[in-house]
């Protein structure tokens, strides 16, 4: 089990923020850490990795990593870390990037095969696409067969098709290497697809902790269907008003009466829900 109990003062742009986390994670759990930017997600990951200091205690599978002022050096924690910007060693080929972490040619070959990168083994990182770089970064993070794998927004720089491939690879490797995995993300669909548990941070505190279904599903009471979006425009059409709302990557129109149109403003976050009719699904294309 991983037991995290830490405090850290973060210097924000406007005011200081207190990061205060008390979190227990079971072995081989796949946990998503979510929340707005500046809520302390990345800092939590970096403290776990030993890249930043904090007060409190961290114990991982029975070993003390942080105990008061005594910290285990980052070099000795034997973790895997996937950075948002890949952070590959630019001077080394794909294969060398892996072997630098551990001289295990067999494992390197295996990982590159799993992620379909075998043909790229001798290339320099500068000659790879973003998705390929992130897969190399994932392989590199697993070269020490870490028990704990940390990923800081691993998908954020990738286009949707690349995300899908990487999500598939991550799930597979998580199972094969039996890692306990923590990853930072904003994307609900990623959380739903990958994680068994999601922890939501706000201003350095944990405000939600549960299964993705419990945390992510927004319907309340008799609501059948509920989506969060942002109003882009409100315009008048004959006697009614129409609000244009962005929901994820989609744009929808919702009819408003005059009174409602007064009460909303452009840019406002809104919930689009329906009670009377069950939404119907039909296949795309």
């Amino acid at each position, binding site marked *: 089990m991983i037991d995290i109990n830490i405090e850290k003062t973060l210097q924000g742009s406007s005011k200081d923020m207190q990061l205060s986390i008390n979190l227990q994670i079971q072995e081989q759990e796949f946990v998503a850490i979510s929340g707005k930017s500046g809520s302390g997600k990345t800092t939590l990951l970096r403290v776990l*990795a030993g890249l930043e200091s904090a007060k409190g205690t961290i114990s991982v599978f029975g070993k003390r990593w942080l105990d008061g002022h005594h910290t285990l050096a980052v070099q000795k924690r034997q973790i895997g870390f996937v950075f948002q910007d890949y952070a590959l060693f*630019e001077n080394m080929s794909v294969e060398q990037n892996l072997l630098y*972490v551990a001289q295990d040619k067999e494992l390197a070959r295996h990982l590159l095969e799993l992620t379909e990168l075998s043909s790229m083994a001798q290339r320099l990182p500068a000659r790879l696409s973003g998705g390929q770089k992130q897969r190399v970064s994932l392989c590199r993070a697993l070269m020490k067969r870490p028990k704990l794998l940390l990923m800081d927004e691993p998908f954020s720089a990738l286009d949707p098709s690349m995300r899908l491939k990487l999500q598939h690879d991550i799930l597979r490797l998580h199972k094969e290497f039996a890692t306990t995995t923590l990853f930072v993300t904003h994307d609900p669909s990623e959380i739903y697809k990958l994680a068994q548990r999601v922890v939501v941070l706000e201003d350095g505190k944990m405000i939600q902790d549960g299964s993705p279904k419990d945390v992510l599903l927004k319907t309340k009471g008799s609501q059948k269907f509920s989506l969060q979006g942002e109003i882009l425009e409100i315009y008048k059409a004959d006697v009614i008003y129409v609000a244009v709302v962005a929901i994820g990557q989609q744009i929808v129109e919702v009819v408003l009466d005059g009174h409602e149109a007064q009460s909303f403003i452009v840019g406002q976050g809104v919930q689009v829900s329906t009670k009377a009719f069950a939404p119907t699904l039909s296949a795309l294309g």
Partner: protein
Amino acid sequence: MGGLDLEPFILSFKLAAVVTLILFLIALPVSWWLSQTKCRCKPFIEAIVSLPIVLPPSVIGFYILYTLSYNSPVGAFFEQTFGVKLVFNFTGLVIGSCFYSFPFMVQPLQSGFESLSKNMLEASYIAGKSKLQTLLKVALPNIKPALLTAVIVTFAHTVGEFGVVLMVGGSIPGETKVASVAIYEMVEIMDYSMAHIYSAIMLVLSFSVLLGVYIFNQRYNKRIGVM
């Protein structure tokens, strides 16, 4: 052309080679430390490192002469203990030039290290590598253009220096009379034709070296995908 004495050039290049080697070894840990530290004393150290850029060479030369001459404790100590004189010989030139060229080695290396992705270095620590291993295997290989610039500029700057060399070394043929000092003397005795030849050689050499550096940097950047 029979009278062309190449000794000052050989001396200049020998001096520059020795100084570049010594400074590389000293500047490497200093610039690495400066690039990574969050210490409050950093601006103080940086200011000291950069002093030789703004100080007149004669000032540096004067202080070095004052500190290392037989009349000073340091100079006396070296002469009595090791039997080495530190001024008006080649050793003196090397010491003086090391002070004078130090910022030209430190600054390119430091800005090279600072431009490296912080995450890349952290990835190396996470991989279990020490600071030294990270410096040698990850940081240095990824700042090749800065490294080349530092080495070449230091070398060229040492070849081209005049004030400190004259103050600390004088002009002893075969010992401290480097090319720049030789040219100065030729002009003094109005041997303009010789001064022309020496100056032209310096000009061509310096230009070729710099051209080489910039061509390398352009090719390197293309290969690594920056351009």
